């Protein structure tokens, strides 16, 4: 079974909530966790993977290389490059290898043979290891500025599946792009985390439209529900409208930042806190789905 935690909007507390839920799930379930926020993975900070057991590169990716000695500077490649990653460099042209996605266009339009070739590139890696809490953890880590976070997430999930655990919990990135699509793909349940703001609901609404494409079941969690309580009826109306039961209301709690500063799930070090009480309730509700 796969549960994905997602939100559309960034910074609503996905990773803090996920880390605490994982802590609880790990005690009673055969579990593997995946950090699918490949651009900016942070979950490992709270789960403390001491030693990564393994690392695998995203292979099979390539970038174009222009041989400056043979390039005659006609610029056709730069004009046709769909990623706009070919720049003039003096009299010749140069590929920006960070942005190149390895399509064939430049080599097709280049009027000469042997000017453009391709070389292997590694836009990111997947690492895995055991957390402090005795469950396995897989982290997708894209190198800064590189493309194909979606491919990396697919690969991370595939690797996680090979551990043959009963339950996979995926922490998705912000947004609704290829990395999030890769995260929610194959999920049995998506936990949609929102804050009580119009901005958060707008982004969550866009995420739900993506979930509709996949026909994925979804439930809602409202983080910091008490900082804008006047808005809560709108939040409740939103979840009703997208056919999602709200499985938890999490209050604003300073302990969440304190736990992050200590690099631990809040539910472990502040078990009696308001945050932890709410997380335990969410866990009880989610158990019914597992």
């Amino acid at each position, binding site marked *: 079974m796969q549960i994905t935690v997602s939100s*559309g909007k*960034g910074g609503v507390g996905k990773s803090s909530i996920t880390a605490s839920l994982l802590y609880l799930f790990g005690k009673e379930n055969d579990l593997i966790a995946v950090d699918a926020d490949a*651009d900016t993975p*942070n979950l490992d900070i709270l789960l403390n993977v001491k030693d990564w057991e393994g690392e695998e590169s995203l292979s099979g990716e390539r970038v174009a290389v222009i041989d400056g000695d043979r390039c005659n500077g006609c610029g056709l490649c730069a004009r046709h490059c769909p990623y706009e990653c070919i720049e003039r460099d003096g009299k010749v042209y140069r590929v920006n290898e960070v942005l190149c*996605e390895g399509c064939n266009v430049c080599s*097709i339009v280049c009027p000469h043979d042997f000017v453009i070739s391709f070389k292997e590139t590694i836009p990111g890696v997947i690492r895995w290891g055991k957390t402090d809490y005795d469950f396995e953890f897989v982290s997708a880590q894209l190198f800064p*500025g590189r493309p194909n976070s*979606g491919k990396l997430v697919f690969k991370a999930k595939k690797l996680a599946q090979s551990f043959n655990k009963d339950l996979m919990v995926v922490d998705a990135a*912000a947004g609704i792009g290829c990395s999030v699509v890769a995260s929610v793909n194959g999920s049995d349940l998506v936990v949609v985390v929102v804050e009580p703001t*119009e901005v958060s609901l707008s982004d969550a609404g866009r995420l739900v439209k993506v979930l509709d494409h996949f026909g994925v079941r979804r439930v809602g969690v409202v983080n910091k529900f008490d900082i804008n309580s006047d808005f809560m009826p709108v939040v409740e109306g939103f979840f009703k409208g997208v056919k999602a039961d709200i499985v938890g209301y999490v209050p604003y709690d300073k302990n969440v930042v304190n736990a992050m500063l200590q690099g631990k799930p809040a539910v472990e070090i502040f078990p009696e806190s308001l945050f932890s009480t709410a997380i335990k309730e969410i866990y009880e509700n989610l158990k019914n789905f597992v």
Partner: protein
Amino acid sequence: MIIAFSGGKGGTGKSTVSTNITVLLESFALVDLDVEAPDDHILLSTELVKVKDVNLFQPVFNHEACFACGRCVDACHDNAIISGRDGKPILIPELCGGCRGCKLVCPSREAIGEGKRLVGKIYENLTPYGFPLITGELLEGEKKTYKVLLETRKYALSRYSDLIFDTAAGAGNSIFKALENVDLVVTVTEPTPFGVRDLQKILEVTKQLERKTVVVINRSGTGNESIVENLCNKYGVKVVGRIPYSKNIIKGYFENEPIVTTSLPEAEIFKNLKDRILEEACR
């Protein structure tokens, strides 16, 4: 002049800071490049008005004129073209990235026609604060974030010369493209381990791009700021402002009212920040 707001981590206050700063600047256009989750129009109480579609090229195969040579299948890096039983191509639209490789290699003039797939929209409108807002939006279910960002950026550059870019969370290729050739990158971070790690990702990107970069610490006073400062020293970037954790700022955010339009003391913080940012951008 282009000033871009970025930060790596989601929810650090990029939109709050960039909308407030644009209101103060008065003469800049704001460009929402967070195309997967564009929110600036909400914070600025502005209805979106579409000015442009973002389309991807998609081949339309005309089998009558096709020689069944298979070159388009070989050229497609997305594996979006398969050979049918007669050796003629069939498109899997979901996989097609619209690079035009197939059309470029096709030896028959009529075998591949111009098709398109709508992947996003660009909006432009005047905000109640007197400056224009340009918004890029990726359609739900589409994956070509990069393409929508590219087109939105291009549209904005064709319309105005003084721009504020508000970017998405993350540090992938779309962010790289958003920050390319800007005069100044303002990274908004928070003093937490998550904030610091994601800030480092962005500082790596701006280092590769050789862009002048400064840092704003939002929710100042809630965590450990010395780790942010150490990182800034390591990359040789300045901290140009600290925005305290403030109930007034949060309230303004909830109510979609830019704090700089009020007489609250926090408005001063943003005014000073605007001056510092302009000073750095013009340096």
